[in-house]
């Protein structure tokens, strides 16, 4: 609290900007998976560092919230630390690294391993919100494709994966269909996290600052990863237990530990891993 800087409005953004973002969030919740254009502001951090997520967090935070930020699952990376400090200073909110104690969680490219609850909000940082963008560069065309539900091109892309690699090689930012209507980019989360998108108890909000789009998944929304009958979606992960906590159900990062080809696999979700280690679980690489 002593760190709070009173020179800024609560949560940094001015009230008119927050109203504009809040209106976009409401329309996003009313039309799950549809990308609502919004007048994204310059933020005191570069594009690609979560300017969209930060603006959404600023619009949803209340003074009583407890805020957590993860970057690829970790609470202690530069991006996570700087955004957490940003809101400590400008909003005076309490912060935490413990998933279950947080009411608002801003994330870059992961969904926490621990299931989220009804009192929580998950805010994603999104680099490219348009799932069709790399297939069709024109916004006028992708907008038309969404309006006509013309998603054949996306299936062609997944099919070409199979033709080239024998399986769907897309491993992150894996496209999903929301409530049988909009195809949505879940942000570059690993496809391991895709099954958690649907039927989640928490509200999920997606902010793309540079691309000026906000979209949302209300709780308990139906989200289906695109696939084929003969090539069903598989939520894959590295086929190892975590080296530190021994977890076999969590998403793993591969860490190179020497220059002789040595490596270890550890949970990408640092809070989950630490929680398990505290509870006495030990992996084969734990000291």
């Amino acid at each position: 609290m002593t760190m709070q800087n009173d020179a800024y409005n609560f949560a940094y953004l001015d009230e008119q900007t927050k109203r504009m973002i809040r209106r976009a969030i409401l329309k996003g919740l009313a039309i799950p998976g549809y990308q609502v254009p919004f007048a994204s502001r310059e933020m005191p951090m570069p594009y690609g560092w979560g300017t969209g997520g930060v603006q959404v967090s600023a619009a949803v935070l209340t003074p009583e919230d407890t805020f957590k930020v993860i970057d690829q699952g970790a609470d202690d990376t530069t991006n996570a630390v700087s955004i957490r400090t940003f809101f400590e200073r400008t909003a005076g909110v309490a912060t935490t690294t413990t998933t279950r104690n947080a009411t608002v969680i801003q994330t870059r490219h992961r969904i926490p391993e621990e299931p989220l609850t009804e009192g929580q909000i998950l805010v994603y940082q999104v680099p490219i919100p348009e799932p069709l963008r790399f297939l069709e560069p024109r916004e006028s065309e992708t907008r038309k494709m969404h309006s006509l539900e013309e998603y054949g091109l996306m299936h062609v892309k997944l099919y070409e994966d199979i033709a080239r690699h024998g399986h769907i090689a897309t491993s992150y930012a894996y496209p999903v269909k929301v409530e049988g209507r909009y195809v949505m980019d879940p942000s570059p989360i690993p496809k391991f996290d895709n099954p958690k998108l649907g039927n989640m108890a928490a509200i999920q909000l997606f902010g793309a600052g540079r691309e000026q789009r906000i979209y949302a998944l209300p709780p308990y929304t139906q989200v289906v990863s695109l696939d084929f009958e003969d090539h069903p979606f598989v939520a894959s992960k590295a086929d190892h237990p975590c080296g530190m906590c021994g977890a076999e159900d969590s998403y793993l990062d591969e860490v190179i530990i020497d220059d002789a080809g040595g490596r270890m696999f550890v949970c990408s979700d640092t809070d989950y891993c630490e929680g398990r280690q505290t509870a006495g679980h030990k992996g084969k690489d734990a000291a």
Partner: protein
Amino acid sequence: MQADTLSGGFSDPARQSAHAFRSVREALGRPGTIQDISGARPPAPLSSAAGAALLTLCDTETPVYLAGNHDCDAVRAWLAFHTGAPPTGPTDCMFAIGTWAALGPLSAYPIGTSEYPDRAATLIVECPSLTTAGATLTGPGIQTSAALSLPELTAFQSNHALFPLGLDFIFTSGTRLAALPRSTVVTQEGAF
């Protein structure tokens, strides 16, 4: 009258609107739940909940339609002073406020376009009371099913049929509010 116009807004806009938005967002994100919302003391016939919602969401960029008895000098002056929202008719409003009877017919409001379904009006419906009983609601935001006292059924069913186009509704009564986005499937009580 002048004192009424100048008072009744948020005394701490940043924090009060953050709380009010949390209520609106929870209501719209979880249709069928009833949320408390406070902070506004608007002139009659505007309810406290509707006043707080307007203060939280409206400004000079959002044309507002005041329907029926809500289109009075006291409300116009209060809304103009606290939000600056330009008053307008139903055809080009972003927000509309009134009783269910005064707001109709719904065909007058913008429902968005197929490429921009977000460009649709949000109707704030002042209700005598709100209870979690009545029409059965299913859809996004609802785990199995929910119930909400709606002023009628068919209007919301035909609105949902327009999805992804359509209107979104906020129901207000006193200091409480509920919401019904266009994505919600509305059926008769006990039909689920």
